[in-house]
């Protein structure tokens, strides 16, 4: 299976199963339509399309050499691997809901204003430490363990963040585990002391900022309804500089109210940020701001425009990283990782303030997905196996999709929320993800010139 597309003036073909990517000229690109699905050249098709002559013969020979070298029209070998795979997964990452409370009332919040359809609650140090004990016990021989402090707003409970972090570091030393910490914050309570602690201890920090002031302030509002842009932006700029513009993301959300989101990325670049993620909101169509199918053409055009802006920026010698266009074609994740996706429900779990375990932060508050508690030290095996056994070949829509090794089957929570089944991906997210993969590959090709 191949996927061919044009972007950034490049004619690209991706060989899906091998992962090979080629940039072609127009003649070779046109000739791809003259092969059957197995890489057999059909001369009658070429004749019909008028693709004949010495130049086309030459292009055909070059494509044939790629086929011979197993770099084009290769067969999928992974479905069989997935079937035979005796996956022995261990829990290696926890999302700690350090505060089911928030000092903002962002209109698109999937966490119900921080409460996750429950009550306002802060995690205690006792629960957090139990979570650390739990993940050490569950992580088997795995050395690297990730802890993400999430909310609500984690800075509302920062003393507990510090206590859990110090405990995890100590236990890691004693038990041969390397803890990596990340924290997500809206910045309202960020100050110099917290910044210093974050810089000393957190390998990544995610800073919520949507872009232009009017876009940010229309959604990310305080309890009194006023915007938060002026309060958080200077603090985020300072924090990004203090980390040498590395190991952080300013992370924005775009909605159907700002489908010109490339302007927000540009604004974040103008503020000096070099690590940027601006991502589509996920919300049911009943919400005014949700992304609809009819928005997709505008979103695709905007992604193209953004890819061009970022390519020009890179070519001018300035580095800006856009999270959703990151791709490492040489040494990205292995096939096993790409088969199985994010690991929610078996490698990655969320812990609520009271110590309940869920497959991920987006399942919190759905009682049927409660997997146990950190105090019991065991997981609901039915739920764990349901998530562990899900892969790109258990999802009908994914098994034949060219993008399956780039999104790895999409987000289980989105699939469940939109289609009622973790194996039925959310189609609108799929379409946007495919566009982003094309942009990322085209940028890699354009920047290799």
């Amino acid at each position, binding site marked *: 299976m191949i996927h061919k597309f044009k972007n950034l003036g490049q004619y690209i073909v991706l060989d899906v199963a091998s992962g*090979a990517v*080629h940039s*072609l000229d127009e003649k070779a690109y046109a000739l791809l339509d003259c092969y059957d699905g197995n890489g057999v050249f059909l001369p009658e098709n070429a004749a019909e399309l008028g693709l004949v002559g010495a130049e086309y013969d030459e292009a055909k020979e070059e*494509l044939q050499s790629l086929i011979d070298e197993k*770099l084009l029209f290769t067969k999928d070998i992974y479905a069989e691997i997935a079937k035979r795979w005796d996956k022995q997964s261990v829990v290696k990452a926890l999302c700690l809901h350090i505060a089911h409370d928030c000092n903002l009332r962002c209109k698109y919040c999937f966490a119900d204003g921080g409460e996750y359809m429950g009550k306002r609650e802060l995690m205690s140090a006792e629960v957090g430490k139990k979570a650390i004990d739990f993940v050490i016990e569950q992580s088997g021989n795995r050395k690297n363990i990730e802890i993400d402090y999430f909310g609500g707003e984690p800075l509302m409970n920062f003393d507990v963040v510090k206590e859990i972090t110090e405990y995890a570091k100590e236990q890691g030393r004693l038990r041969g585990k390397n803890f990596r910490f990340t924290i997500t914050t809206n910045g309202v309570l960020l100050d110099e002391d917290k910044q210093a602690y974050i810089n000393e201890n957190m390998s990544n920090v*995610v800073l919520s900022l949507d872009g232009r002031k009017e876009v940010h302030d229309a959604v990310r509002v305080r309890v009194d309804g006023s915007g938060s842009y002026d309060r958080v932006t200077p603090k985020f700029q300072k924090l990004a500089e203090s980390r040498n513009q590395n190991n952080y993301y300013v992370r924005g959300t775009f909605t159907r109210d700002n489908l010109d989101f490339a302007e927000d990325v540009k604004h974040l670049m103008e503020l000096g940020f070099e690590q940027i993620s601006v991502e589509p909101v996920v919300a049911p169509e009943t919400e005014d701001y949700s992304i609809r199918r009819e928005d997709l053409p505008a979103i695709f055009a905007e992604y193209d425009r953004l890819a061009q802006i970022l390519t020009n920026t890179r070519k001018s010698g300035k580095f800006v990283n856009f*999270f959703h266009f990151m*791709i490492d*074609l040489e040494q990205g994740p292995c096939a096993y990782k790409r088969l199985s996706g994010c690991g929610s429900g078996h490698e990655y779990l969320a812990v609520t303030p009271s110590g309940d375990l869920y497959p991920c932060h987006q399942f919190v508050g759905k009682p049927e997905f409660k997997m146990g508690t950190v105090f019991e030290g065991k997981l609901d095996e039915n739920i764990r196996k349901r998530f562990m056994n899900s892969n790109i070949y258990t999802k009908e829509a994914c098994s034949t999709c060219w993008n399956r090794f780039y999104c790895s089957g*999409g987000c289980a929570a989105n699939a469940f929320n939109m289609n009622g089944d973790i194996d039925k991906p959310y189609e609108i997210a799929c379409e946007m993800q495919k566009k982003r993969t094309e942009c990322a590959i085209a940028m890699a090709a354009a920047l290799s010139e």
Partner: protein
Amino acid sequence: MKHVKTISGANLAKSVNKGGCGECQTSCQSACKTSCTVANQKCEQKKD
């Protein structure tokens, strides 16, 4: 080649032989939290 430039080789197919150590980062921890983006993750065995 005159008509074709290979940007990257068969790296996905090659990764079957050495992959699966499980030490890599959980994708949702990096920034997204609302999507699933795996291909932009780093392999923990990556040589810098």
